[in-house]
Every structure is written in structure tokens, then in C-alpha cells.
């Protein structure tokens, strides 16, 4: 079922982009979104334990979406008052809660591209969200012309918060979400494409890893009863990856990703792969075998 569900997700994802490019008529877009969301969340009958894991994960996702709203408020305010330095300061930390729960946000139709599209992902006239403002701040060193994007971003993250509140997450969400978060790292972050102007990629990577670890923690008791070795392996690999990242920490944040040379990025990538491999076997808890 999960496989079928994922398949639907993948196909749905493609449709979203195409439809979204074609029109952003609000009512049509919203109807589209509702459909996508129904497809995105599928039920897997859970044991009480798995259901409990889903509830805990739900609380976490709710909390992060609230934090996202809080932090984005500060960032948006700085952009609107034209304080470039303050806006640069707040940019990466605002994105952290988003990155921790990204796979959930991705389920809500057009929300993900609206908030997180990178240049070239969508036609330029439809390009909005964090990275649009990132480009203005770092490439042009200005907030000029960004007020509208800032307002839109604010309303989009508020929309996310509402949607997260109204959805009922399943045990499959933390199980697959943990791997998906690491896939995000492997696919676009390790290359430095995600934050190509600000080079704050390590904030995103760390947030993806944190989100994955929290998700795993919630299902861990169930995995533990099935396969203690797997749990030990995953925990060792989380620790390995975190140890690898530690030297790049600076205060509450991270060094610029430009400071990492090719071989340092490669080692990081390999540690992520080493962790994601056993993590992908956690799905076995869902079949109960």
C-alpha cells in the first residue's frame, strides 16, 4: 500500500507542477490541492503503538509549523522594513522548521513550490517564496521589490500551519518521512544547489537530519521489538553523521557551505547514504513481520 501510495505521490507531484504552471486561478488551484492531499495521505492500519507514534509525530509537525510561522514573521518584517542585514541573519533560521518537516509540506499540493521553489523550478513570473528573496538579499544586496513576495510567503506558511492542523498523519509518515528527509539532503543539498546564493545549506542539512531523527525516535520502540540490531545500526549512523557535521557548527548556526571542499562534501554525502540505507528498512514495522 505504501508503495502504491508513494507511486500516487510521485505521479501527483508531476501533475501538480504542470497544472500549477498552467494556471494559478485560486479556486481551481485549491480544488486541485484538495485532490492531491487526499491522494497524499493514505491509511495504514496501525497497531496502537504505531498510532501513538503517528500522534507524537503529528504534535511535532504541528509544533514545527507554528515555529515556522513565528520565525517567518520576523524574517518578513525585516524584508519589509528594508533591513538587509537583519533579513540575511533571519533567513536560514526561519527555514529550519520548514526543513525539519519538509516531506509533510510537500504533500500539500502547490504549497511546496510556492514556498521553496528554486530559480528555474518554475517560470520566472511564478517564482515566489524563500529563494526568490534569498536571491535579492545575497545577489543584489537589497530588499527592494521584495515586500510582495514577503507577504505572499507569510500567507503561504500560515496556510501550511492550518493544513497541518487539519490533517491526520499516519504511522507511515514518520517511517517514510525520515528517509525522504535524507533523500532531500542527497538529491539537492549536498551539491549546494538549494541555497545557491546564501550558501546556508548546512542549516537545511542539519534540519533535515534532525527531522529524520525525531521521526525515527517515535517509531523506534516498535522497531526495537522487531530488530534491535537495526536500531543500534541506525543510532550509530546518526551519531556518525552528527560527529561529521560538528566541526562546521558556529554558535547557533553553521559555517557557509562554501567552506567545505569537494572531499568534505563527499564524506558528508557518504555518511548520509550510510544512514539512509538501514533507515529504509524501518518500513518493515508497517507490515508487522
Amino acid at each position, binding site marked *: *500500500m*505504501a*508503495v*502504491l*501510495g508513494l507511486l*500516487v505521490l510521485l505521479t501527483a507531484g508531476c501533475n501538480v507542477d504542470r497544472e500549477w504552471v498552467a494556471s494559478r486561478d485560486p479556486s481551481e488551484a485549491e480544488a486541485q490541492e484538495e485532490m492531491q492531499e*487526499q*491522494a497524499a495521505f*493514505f*491509511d*495504514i*492500519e*496501525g*497497531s496502537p503503538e504505531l498510532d501513538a507514534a503517528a500522534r507524537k509525530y503529528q504534535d511535532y509537525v504541528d509544533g514545527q509549523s507554528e515555529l515556522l510561522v513565528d520565525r517567518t514573521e520576523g524574517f518578513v518584517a525585516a524584508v519589509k522594513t528594508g533591513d538587509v542585514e537583519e533579513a540575511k541573519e533571519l533567513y536560514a533560521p526561519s527555514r529550519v522548521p520548514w526543513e525539519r518537516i519538509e516531506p509533510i509540506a510537500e504533500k500539500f499540493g502547490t504549497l511546496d513550490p510556492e514556498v521553496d521553489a528554486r530559480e528555474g523550478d518554475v517560470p520566472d513570473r511564478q517564482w515566489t517564496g524563500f529563494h526568490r528573496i534569498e536571491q535579492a538579499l545575497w545577489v543584489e544586496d537589497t530588499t527592494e521589490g521584495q515586500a510582495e513576495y514577503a507577504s505572499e510567503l507569510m500567507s503561504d506558511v500560515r496556510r501550511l500551519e492550518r493544513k497541518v492542523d487539519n490533517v491526520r498523519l499516519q504511522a*507511515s509518515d514518520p*517511517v517514510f518521512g525520515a528517509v525522504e528527509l535524507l533523500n532531500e539532503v542527497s538529491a539537492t543539498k549536498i551539491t549546494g544547489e538549494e541555497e545557491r546564493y546564501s550558501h546556508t545549506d548546512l542549516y537545511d542539512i542539519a534540519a533535515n537530519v534532525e527531522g529524520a531523527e525525531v521521526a525515527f525516535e517515535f517509531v523506534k520502540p516498535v522497531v526495537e521489538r522487531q530488530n534491535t540490531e537495526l536500531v543500534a*545500526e541506525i543510532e550509530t*549512523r546518526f551519531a*556518525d553523521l552528527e560527529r561529521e557535521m560538528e566541526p562546521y557548527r558556529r554558535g547557533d548556526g553553521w559555517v557557509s557551505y562554501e567552506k567545505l571542499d569537494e572531499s568534505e562534501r563527499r564524506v558528508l554525502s*557518504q555518511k548520509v*547514504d*550510510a*544512514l539512509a*540505507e*538501514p533507515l*529504509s*528498512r*524501518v*518500513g*518493515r*514495522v*508497517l*507490515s*508487522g*513481520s
Partner: protein
Amino acid sequence: MSEDKETSLLGRKFSRRTALTLAGTFGAGMALGGGGALSARELAEGDQTVEFYGEHQAGIATPQQDRLHFAAFDLTVSKAEEIRDLMRAWSDAAARMCAGKSVGGGNDAFVPPEDTGEAQDLTAGRLTVTFGFGPTLFEKDGKDRFGLASRKPEALQEIPDLPGDNLDPELSGGDVCVQACADDPQVAFHAVRNLARIGRGAAVIRWSQLGFGRTSSTSSAQKTPRNLMGFKDGTNNIRAEDEDLMDNYVWVREGPAWMQSGTYLVARRIRMLIEIWDRSPLLEQEQTIGRHRASGAPLGKEDEYDKVDLEAKGPDGLPLIPMDSHIRLARKDQRERILRRGYSFTDGMDSKTGQLDAGLFFISFQRDPHRQFVPLQRRLGQNDRLTEYIQHTGSAVFACPPGVRRGGFAGESLLA
């Protein structure tokens, strides 16, 4: 969890049983392969398999296949027993793949399949997987990483810098090597891919090389192939059927007990300066090699296997086989004979020059690289006219332990 209760997916009703049955259908082939029953692939196979277990590792004396995927790994573990676990897992998977089976069954819809699947429905393609240990496994930067330093064979010293080397450290060295050879490139790739996946967290690929055409014969039943210079290569190679030669030059009989019946593998990535070679006159090409291009015969002779006469002189009184020709220099000292098992390669285009990045991925097996390969290559690198047309860009040496016994694993004699 109840099996009968229906759950909703896309507004349709699916029971868990339906979902698992669906997944089961998709995964059926693999389940057969993994479950011990014979799959269609195994039945159709005939003699397309080469035995993984035996006195010597396969992929050395066994007839050379058409394709290569070679990978050098660096270990990321810290304890010898973790290497042992890795080698056991790798050996089990290699034995299965060489027998034409998938690395594992599993048709659980909620986890990724154990085998990556691309070799399903293909024959085993005479797949062989050969393992070797590099010098850095025993000692790296002066550190005895795994407590194995005292067991490092004398013969496993790093290959020293040799004349004409232009080595890229990123294409050299490695703690453990995997040589996967098969007649089908997808089978060879599948082997390395699945071993890399199994090794995730314990080993990372340091470099790897694909080879697409064998450049030597290792069996008298094989015709001599041509390398990318257009010349027959390996006419004078050791043939695996010649057990005396194999015992004299390939199989190890000295050094630590764990290496008895093993051998040493030297790998050299030799880039050919293709464009330059291609604009050299035939006469120059033939004098460089010392053989006629069309027949493969030594200069002045007619047949490929005619005896090489180093004394023969032309009408001008000069040696027919020039003093700096490749075959003259290569055969100077019989004690340096080696078993060559190389492949042609291309990595596409060199983006800096726009030239073809292609050549010979040289692999040789020998009892002692420092008495065989090293002096041979030192002489060639200094005097061989061929060095004008080639560059050695990668280098590695590995100790290939003896063959694997059933129920055992490669390197057991070192790690158990």
C-alpha cells in the same frame, strides 16, 4: 494488525492482504531467486556460471570475460571484526550473484527490495568477483588501524613512483578491491552496485573503473584480442592452463600463511594519447610495438605465434625489432613474467583538451609485484618508445587472498 479490515486508498478499498499480494506478484521472480528454488534464469543458464568457491579466487585463472567493473573501496569502520562482517556479507552476496541468483529475497511492500533487480532475467554471464586487500588496510599514515600491521606481507608494499607516471591520487590506492568481470556489463555493474550497497556504512567507493573489451587472453582457448591501439595484446601472456607457469609466476608460496595460494593484483589506469597515436605512420606504430599490426606477428615474421627473434637484423644492419620497442623491453627478463587480465576503457572525453579519455585498464596478477611488475615497468617507463603515446594515470596494488571455502568468506585466513 487485522488482515481483513479494509483501508482506504484513493477512495478504493484495499485490504492489507490485497496489497501484499500485489507486491508479492511484482516480487515473485526475486522471491524464487532468494528462496532457494530454481528460477527460470537459473534453469536457462547452463554453463554461464563460474564457481565462486575453490582453492583460488575466481577471476584470476578463469577465462577472461568481456566486461569489467572494478571498484576500490576505503573502509570507514574502526575494528577488524567489522571488516570480517563486511567480507562475510560480501562473499555471501558474491557467491549468490556468481551462481546467477539475486542477493536476497524479500517482497515486503514497505521496504526496498534486497536485490536492486537489474540482473534479473539475465544470465550470470560467467560473473566472477575477486577481492583483494590494499596496503592501507594494514597501515595508513603510520597507523596500525585494525591491528593487522604485523600480518602485512612483504610483497604488499605500495608501488613506488615509476618513470613516466602521472598519477591521480583519486584514481589510485584503496583498502579493499572488488574486481567484477562478466560477459554482460549490466551483470558486472549489478555486482558492484549491490556490494557497495551492502557495504554502506562500512566502506565507500574510492574510485572505480569500467572496462569494455578484454585486452588479453588468459586461456589457450581464447583468440588474442586487440587493444585500443589496434594491436593484438597478450600474445605472450601466461595461459592459465599452464599450471607450472601459474605456480611459478602467479600463485603465492611464500610470505605469511594467510596468503598461500593467493596472488597480488596490480592495477594501472593507462591513458592512451589516442589522437597522437592515430596520426603516427603505420611503420612507426609497428616499430613502437615490435609487431605487425595486421597479423600480430613479430616484426619480420608472418604468424602471430612465430618465435620472437631479437637478434634478427634488417638489410640496413639494424635490429628488426628496435631496441626501444615494447616487446623487446617487455620480454627482457623471464623472471618478470606476469598474468595480464586487462580491459580497454573509455571515460568519455577529457573536457580540458577535448580529446578522448581512453586507454588500457591494466590488471596483472603475480607472486610478487616488486620482483615482477615493478622492475618490468621501471624498464618500460624509462626506455619504451610506447611511453610517448601513453600516460599512467592511476595505480593500485592488492593482496588477493586464496580462494573461499564453502561456508567461509574471502580473507578468512587473515580476518577470522
